[in-house]
């Protein structure tokens, strides 16, 4: 579609969406939505002329008309589907969304301890929950870019997770956004709002997956606020259809002495872009961002991270690994800001890529901007193939070449997988990744 045309199709979609809201359009939030769609109409999607999108051309998203989803329909979703995408029966409290709508039938939060709430965003909005309303968009501005504008314009559903001060939640909470593609491509706008109170503790798993292969568009925004001394462990799996578009923006704000650590695994999407921004706002925070990308075919998977050291004595670690096969492309951009006064900052960034084919490419760019003088910041990037000497060693012991390649590829990935916090989820992912490594290649389905 031509430039103006695709904008028009989202505006038309917005009008349908508005009608489906049944009178809610008089609420103050709706003014925010209107403002956001107007913003989208004026800025559209970013193009490769925008520095932040230089290597990720989202024109294919503009070329398809994606209709908004207006009601819940859980057809085709089964326990088997959930298990396949790494959501084991058993441990976690689980919230399941289907095409962006909260699924009552698959969500379970029975037994949540006092001081922990999992609520559908729709119901929080219906109650006009002041706290939720004030926090929505506090970290991710609607005007950030066309994608955040759209997510805000179509704001309706999502997960609101709140852990009160000093409450320790032992078992993880898993939020699963399932897409069910159909002949008519749809867009959904997942939204997650997490508030971890002072000295609280939370383990959160986010999963983005599809029931089957197909074209759809997931435009997600996650906001995580950590109070003083809070600990949030975050695991994320993106296993969308390889025909789908996945654009996700996560923003984290950390108060004094808090600890946020994230492991993000990206397997799916024709185009997948994760933007993660963590602001270390108080002294003595620790922030860990790890990522693992497996891509094949013509997939493009882009990880943009920003760690903003705004206060002294904070530590950040970053380890992003990619395994690229076929004609796939990877992008890694890691910004680290050290603000004036953020003395004794200790920041370490590592980006490692293995190219399994001659046609796979990676664009990697560390970007350190340091305005304090007593800091330790290191970064390193490597790009290579599987190590021939290791390969020969395994083969010389009787292990076939393809199996040896898979073993080494998995070993490269295991570095990140082993850091995944939630143990059952880690085991699921372990199996999922092993199934994707087939005879020295990456399979795009498992």
């Amino acid at each position, binding site marked *: 579609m031509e430039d103006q045309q695709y904008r028009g199709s989202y505006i038309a979609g917005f009008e349908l969406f508005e009608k489906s809201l049944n009178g809610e359009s008089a609420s103050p939030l709706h003014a925010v939505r209107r403002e956001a769609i107007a913003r989208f109409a004026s800025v559209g999607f970013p193009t490769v002329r925008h520095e932040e999108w230089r290597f990720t051309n989202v024109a294919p998203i503009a070329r398809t008309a994606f209709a908004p989803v207006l009601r819940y329909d859980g057809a085709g979703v089964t326990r088997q589907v959930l298990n396949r995408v790494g959501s084991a029966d058993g441990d976690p409290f689980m919230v399941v969304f289907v095409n962006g709508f909260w699924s009552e039938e698959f969500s379970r939060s029975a037994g949540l301890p006092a001081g922990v709430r999992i609520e559908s965003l729709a119901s929080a909005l219906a109650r006009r929950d002041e706290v939720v309303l004030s926090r929505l968009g506090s970290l991710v501005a609607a005007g950030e870019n066309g994608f955040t504008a759209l997510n805000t314009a179509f704001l309706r559903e999502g997960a609101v997770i709140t852990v009160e001060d000093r409450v320790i939640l032992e078992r993880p909470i898993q939020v699963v956004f399932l897409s069910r593609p159909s002949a008519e491509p749809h867009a959904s706008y997942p939204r997650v709002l997490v508030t971890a109170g002072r000295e609280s503790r939370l383990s959160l798993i986010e999963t983005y997956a599809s029931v089957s292969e197909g074209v759809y568009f997931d435009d997600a925004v996650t906001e995580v606020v950590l109070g003083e001394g809070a600990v949030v462990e975050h695991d994320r799996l993106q296993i969308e259809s390889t025909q789908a578009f996945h654009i996700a923006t996560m923003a984290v704000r950390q108060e004094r002495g808090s600890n946020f650590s994230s492991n993000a695994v990206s397997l799916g999407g024709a185009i997948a872009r994760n933007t993660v921004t963590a602001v270390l706002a108080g002294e003595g925070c620790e922030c860990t961002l790890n990522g693992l990308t497996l891509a094949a075919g013509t997939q493009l998977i882009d990880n943009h991270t920003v760690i903003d050291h705004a206060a002294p004595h904070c530590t950040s670690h970053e380890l992003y690994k990619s395994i690229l096969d076929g004609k796939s492309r990877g992008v890694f951009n890691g910004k680290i800001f050290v603000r004036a006064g953020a003395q004794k900052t200790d920041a370490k960034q590592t980006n490692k890529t293995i190219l399994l084919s001659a046609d796979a490419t990676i664009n990697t760019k560390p970007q350190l901007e340091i305005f304090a003088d007593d800091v330790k910041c290191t970064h390193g990037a490597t790009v290579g193939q599987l190590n021939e000497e290791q390969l020969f060693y*395994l083969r010389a012991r009787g292990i076939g070449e393809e199996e040896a390649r898979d073993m080494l590829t*998995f070993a490269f990935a295991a570095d990140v997988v082993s850091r995944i916090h939630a143990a059952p989820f880690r085991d699921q992912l372990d199996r999922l990744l092993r199934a994707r490594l087939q005879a020295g290649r990456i399979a795009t389905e498992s």
Partner: protein
Amino acid sequence: MLTVRNLHAGIDGNEILRGIDLEVNAGEVHAIMGPNGSGKSTLAGVLAGRPEYQVSAGEVTYEGKNLLDLAPEERAREGLFLAFQYPVEIPGVSNTYFLKAALNAIRKHRGEEELDAMEFLALMKKKMGLVEMDQDLLNRPVNEGFSGGEKKRNEIFQMAVLDPKLAVLDETDSGLDIDALRIVAAGVNKLRRPENAVILVTHYQRLLNYIIPDFVHVLIDGRIAKSGGKELALALEERGYDWIKEQGLPVGA
């Protein structure tokens, strides 16, 4: 068991082996000695199927098969084992996982049933004592963070588990202290059976105090310049390699 005829091989167009002839029978231990750069490690590498070497002439028959036609993993499954001069570190792959995959690949090839986790563990326990390996080392990634001696002992441990017909040890003794040398030698001597054979590539005579070879070959400039019994090793220790060089090399090679 192994017949090498007029073997020429090299790397990147540089010929290193320039006509090797060698006959190894079951039950024998052959020591291959020689100065630095004489082609000892190249010979070990060519036998194991190291991909960077090109064979330009000659033939190698192992157990009636053309060895050079076989991929490295096929050679291993047929019972050939190379103990590496510089064992590789493989982060992310545990020793036990790796060795179980290797053993089962070999067993499968032999038409034997694959070992399950329990049976494999029992076998490991049995072989661990042999090379005085720590359980702790086995749970770690392959060779990662191992000392030089631990790496070499791990090679011998793998050999003990895989139980090869023909073991080629590439300077396994280099850099070992006396205790480690004794352990390595004990491991090799355990393998010494009428149906097996060993090729020891070594720079020093001292390993041969612990493993008594049946034959000693001196490799100089890519050819076997002299062969003899164990007394040849002692003569080399005393006199070095120069006297052999002075005797001249076979003509026409």
